[in-house]
């Protein structure tokens, strides 16, 4: 076997392992999310699924997976077969493809360290709305179509603040490679640019369609949104893709703002990086689950207004603030990592205070305008 073919084999094996990883993690995460959400709502969650569910119903998801695999795949009569079948495939493929550039540890624990890693994540994610459009269009169902409309208008819009806030770790570390971004985080970027972290988190929550942005499938309004007509494992593929997207969003947030695999003793034991990264991702994931359990669903106009009138301007303001303050500090001769981080944190907190002031001012004036419109009380 020549060296070239051995290299190809190595990459293929790495890619295979990396594709298995999110799928395996999701089996556990579905159980975890159900348990955590149940506790938040004062329930017990799954406790046992017959004899084989194991302690705390750990193997509940396996039972569900086997059940869903044995179910019939129903393709509606009027549906466009090819597109209908391709949609769930594309959903899972896109969700897994992002994992090619995620660094699980210092060296080697990554399929490829692309020098455009962060950009690759954004570029591949831009394929995701198509699986929803394809599902919604090919189903020939008005609920599915409404779900697809909502998904597109939401995801395309929220991509903008997501990219704007993604630029801040890129700017601070001077690289698009996720590995270099992690290595540059001597201070986690959530402590350097908390406003950017907030914008990125909210935009990611909207991208993965988690409550309060869960409009594309809004089960109490439009059945199940774009995948209303799916059954069996094709439904399972959408469910799986959605959970992988949630995990991916948490992992990307941990990589960009929480220092990725960095933690104690990673230098001695590189494999420990996976543990630290997954712990951080689990923390972020549980915030998403908390949203899921506790938030009401917004209306579509509220979701779009929140994006275009709040997140996009805030992302632009944050980008300008960080760029100008960082440049000013470098010009003034402040080059130490800690000093720069402190300066940027101060600038971010000032920006946050200004935004809070503007928000309370606007809401007060809105309330006043509404109270003027109220018809005067007529006393008899």
């Amino acid at each position, binding site marked *: 076997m020549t060296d070239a073919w051995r290299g190809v084999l190595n990459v293929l094996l790495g890619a295979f392992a990396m594709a298995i990883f999110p799928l395996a993690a999701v089996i556990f995460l579905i159980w975890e999310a159900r348990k955590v959400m149940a506790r938040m709502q004062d329930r017990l969650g799954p406790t046992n699924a017959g004899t084989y569910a194991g302690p705390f119903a750990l193997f509940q998801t396996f039972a569900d997976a086997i059940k869903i695999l044995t179910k019939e795949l129903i393709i509606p009569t009027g549906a466009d077969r090819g597109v209908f079948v391709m949609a769930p495939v594309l959903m899972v493929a896109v969700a897994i493809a992002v994992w090619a550039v995620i660094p699980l540890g210092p060296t080697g624990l990554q399929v490829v360290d692309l*020098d455009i890693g962060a950009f690759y994540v*954004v*570029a591949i994610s831009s*394929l995701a709305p198509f699986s929803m459009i394809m599902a919604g269009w090919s189903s020939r169902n008005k609920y599915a*179509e409404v779900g697809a409309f909502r998904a597109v208008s939401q995801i395309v819009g929220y991509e903008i603040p997501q990219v704007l806030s993604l630029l801040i770790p890129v700017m601070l570390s001077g690289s698009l490679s996720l590995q270099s971004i992690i290595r540059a985080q001597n201070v986690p970027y959530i402590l350097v640019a908390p406003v950017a972290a907030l914008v990125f988190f909210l935009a990611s929550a909207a991208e993965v369609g988690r409550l309060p942005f869960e409009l594309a499938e809004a089960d109490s309004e439009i059945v199940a949104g774009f995948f209303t007509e799916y059954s069996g494992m094709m439904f399972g593929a959408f469910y799986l893709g959605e959970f992988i997207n949630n995990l991916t969003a948490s992992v990307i947030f941990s990589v960009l703002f929480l220092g990725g695999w960095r933690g104690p003793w990673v230098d001695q034991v590189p494999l420990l990086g996976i543990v630290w990264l997954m712990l951080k991702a689990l923390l972020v994931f549980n915030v998403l689950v908390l949203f899921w359990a506790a938030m009401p669903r917004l209306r579509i106009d509220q979701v779009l207004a929140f994006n275009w009138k709040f997140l996009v301007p805030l992302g632009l303001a944050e980008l300008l603030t960080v760029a100008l303050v960082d440049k000013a500090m470098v010009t003034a001769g402040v080059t130490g990592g800690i000093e720069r981080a402190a300066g940027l944190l101060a600038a971010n907190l000032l920006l946050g205070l200004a935004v809070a002031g503007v928000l309370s001012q606007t809401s007060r004036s809105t309330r006043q305008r509404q109270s003027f419109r109220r018809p005067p009380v007529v006393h008899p």
Partner: protein
Amino acid sequence: MYLGQLIFLIVGCVMVAAAIRVVTSHRIFHAALWLIASFFCVAIVYMLLESPFMAGIQLFIYIGGIAVLTVVAIMVTKDAMSADSRTVSNGWSAAIVAISLFGVMAWTIVQLDLPTEPGMPVSGDSLPLLGAALVDPGGYLLPFEVVSVLLTVVLIGALFLGREH
């Protein structure tokens, strides 16, 4: 490299087939999906040319931007989403326009004085060089800024056209 040529051959065939399906599909939504497949194959070709940045741009601009806009335009067009919508059959005039456009482009490419051997190899990472060239006053700073002004004009124009009366 043998493997690279093999992949290029497969991807090229898929790309051409998808491009042909774009113009022969009866449903306009299918045409849009085949267009996306064709764009995706172009991104793979950029990857084969060891230019991941161009591949990312291809995905981001053409699929994330242009294809999404195309699909949204189809979605908000009356009856275009329904099952029996056919593309307007005005095939012959479209063919004449397309063939003449192809002729002009082919002629231009044939006339172009392409270098026969590779130019200066880029030392190290090419991405920072590209970024520096875009914001270097001696490089492409002026065109870069003109493009951003143009985009702002487009944005304001769209807001003006789309305002509520």
